[in-house]
């Protein structure tokens, strides 16, 4: 569905690249996540693939369309949900969608249905300018589905949403992709990436560090740990132990046998921890993590 070879992009055209020599392929129906901190090159890559930025170096083919050649028709099959909502404040929710639908040459979905789907039912005739941030985001998300895209770009799809609505959005994404829609998701929220993505790419400083499924990454880089809180000499202490190691197992046995256990949890390594481990950088800060 998407084939990218040696893609590079420089905003300043002076040898400093926002994206340097990246290559990846995305299969049809896959949910592909681009995970990285701010300024890593996620939006730049997405911008090139959507056509918002011009292809400078490298090759990219999206849904059979070679990005070297401009072809407006390909937008009939692309949908994008922007992180920053971009709606006509003076138009109602329904007007926003109806107008946008008229710009496509393909059949479009019923705007009211989409408005209901994202939980904005009853607000069709409310001006988008009076929506809250979360409502605007949902409407932008709904708009991205108008033309039933085969290639769907999602930029922080659950940002600013409460857990209930975020869960709803995630369900919609899964359902759409189950019908064969390919999704390119950019985020620095590792929970979303973990829950939704079939594969993720870690991108840092414009370079892809690795691509694999979340499960495979956890198997490869993650270790099960046990977090135990215990009371010793009247003091509550906390330790993280790896029961897979001999030392960890021994220490865990010692604590169980000699101390009063307050709490004990087992957990897997999170994608964020794996990210830090693999790249040496955090997802939320640009500083290198020691």
């Amino acid at each position, binding site marked *: 569905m998407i084939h990218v070879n040696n893609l590079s992009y420089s905003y300043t055209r002076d040898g400093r690249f926002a994206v340097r020599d990246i290559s990846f392929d995305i299969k049809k129906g896959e949910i592909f996540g681009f995970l990285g901190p701010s300024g890593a090159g996620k939006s730049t890559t997405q911008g090139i693939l959507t056509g918002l*930025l011009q292809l400078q170096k490298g090759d990219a083919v999206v849904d059979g369309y070679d990005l070297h050649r401009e072809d407006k*028709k390909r937008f009939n099959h692309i949908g994008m949900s*922007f992180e920053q*909502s*971009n*709606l006509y404040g*003076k*138009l109602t929710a329904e007007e926003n969608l109806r107008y946008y639908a008229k*710009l496509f040459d393909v059949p479009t979905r019923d705007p009211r249905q989409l408005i209901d789907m994202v939980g904005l039912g009853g607000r069709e005739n409310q001006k988008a300018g009076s929506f809250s941030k979360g409502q605007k985001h949902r409407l932008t998300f709904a708009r991205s589905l108008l033309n039933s895209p085969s290639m769907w770009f999602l930029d922080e799809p659950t940002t600013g949403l409460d857990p209930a609505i975020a869960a709803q959005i995630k369900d919609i994404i899964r359902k759409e992709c189950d019908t064969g829609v390919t999704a390119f998701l950019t985020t620095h929220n590792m929970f979303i990436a973990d829950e939704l993505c079939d594969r993720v790419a870690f991108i840092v400083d414009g370079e892809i560090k690795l691509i694999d499924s979340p499960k495979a990454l956890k198997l490869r880089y993650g270790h099960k740990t046990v977090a135990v809180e215990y009371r010793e000499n009247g003091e509550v202490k906390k330790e993280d132990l790896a029961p897979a190691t001999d030392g960890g197992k021994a220490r865990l046995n010692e604590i169980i046998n000699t101390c009063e256990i307050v709490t004990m949890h087992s957990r897997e390594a999170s994608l964020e921890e794996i990210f830090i481990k693999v790249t040496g950088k955090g997802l939320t800060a640009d500083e290198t993590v020691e």
Partner: protein
Amino acid sequence: MKLWNNYLKELKIASRGFYFYMEFVMAAILLVCILLFVPAEVTNVSQEAIYVDLPRETLDLMLLNSFGEAGRYERAEDTTVKLKPADIVYYDEQTGEKYELSFDDKKTLELETWYYYDAATGKHESTLYIAQSMDDLVRAAKAEKWYSTVVQLDETGQMRYKLLLFGSESERYKNLITAVMDAENLPALQQAADELEVVTLGAENVLNNRESYMPLAIVIMNGLMGMLVVIAYLTIDKSSGLIRAMSLTPMRTRSYLLSKVMVVLTISLISSLVITVPVMGAQPNYLLFIPTVLLVTTLSCMLGLWIASFFSDLKSAFGVLILFMVILMLPAMSYIIPGFAPLWIKLMPTYPMLQAIKETLLPRPDTGYVLLICGGMLIVSALFLWWSEHRYKKSLGV
């Protein structure tokens, strides 16, 4: 179809904003001002003052006999002039002598007033105010900006005339006056002027004074504003990120830009008709007038789009656009003062715009000329649109 749908959407959004209606209110206010304060016919009555340091009988003789068959002076009601304290300096250009006068008092003058009527037309062509002293003359001339004459007898009993000028007059103009004012020359010049055969080629195809302001109102107040307005609309979409969303649809950049321009055209056309129809009535050829107005605004919008395309940040284009608007207003000077029409003024787009609009308002317009200008505006607009589209393709969605 996309263009039309986009235009309707843009019109809907614009109509939900205050600016849309403000333009029509402005047009209505302008119309009221034109109807109330701009007369249809202007009587160019020149005003001059005179101080005659001679016996009254001599002055009467001058007033009653100077113009023979050409015209006559008639006594009118005295004119009241209120003078404020002032310090005045003037020079005798022949001797170089400097005169400094200081007036600390407020003074009200009742000036003897005479109207001059042309014999042939019967029109009141000029007004003469007679001052009783040199000081009064100088004070009134300075305050009211009148050209003035001082008539005195010298030691030999010869009459001397001195004309009081302001200082900005050219040598050419002064030579002209000297030739005309010479008492010996005047009859000969008058005779030569009267005997001059005059041929008029296109009489009755003129606009009256009020009607002649229409092209200025349409081109300067409506048309040129298009440069700024279309960029303002683009800026709104860009700041809100809407352009990015539009970029991800099959709609062409050109359609998007044109839909914005079409909204500006709608506003401009309605405003222009609000001003024009009550003043001009059925006189203009509206089949010519409407397309000309549309093309004037189109060219302004395309020029604005093209200029702004060179700026990565549309907002910073505003200042440059205002600069361009100010420069493009200059041909209005040539329109108001038709004798001033150097080549560089004629090369500015607003010059043919003004002339084309004026032509469409005439009783017998030169259709060929109007179509030529419209054709030119269409071609240049298309060129600017093509160029802008090429530039905006790369930058609008970023």
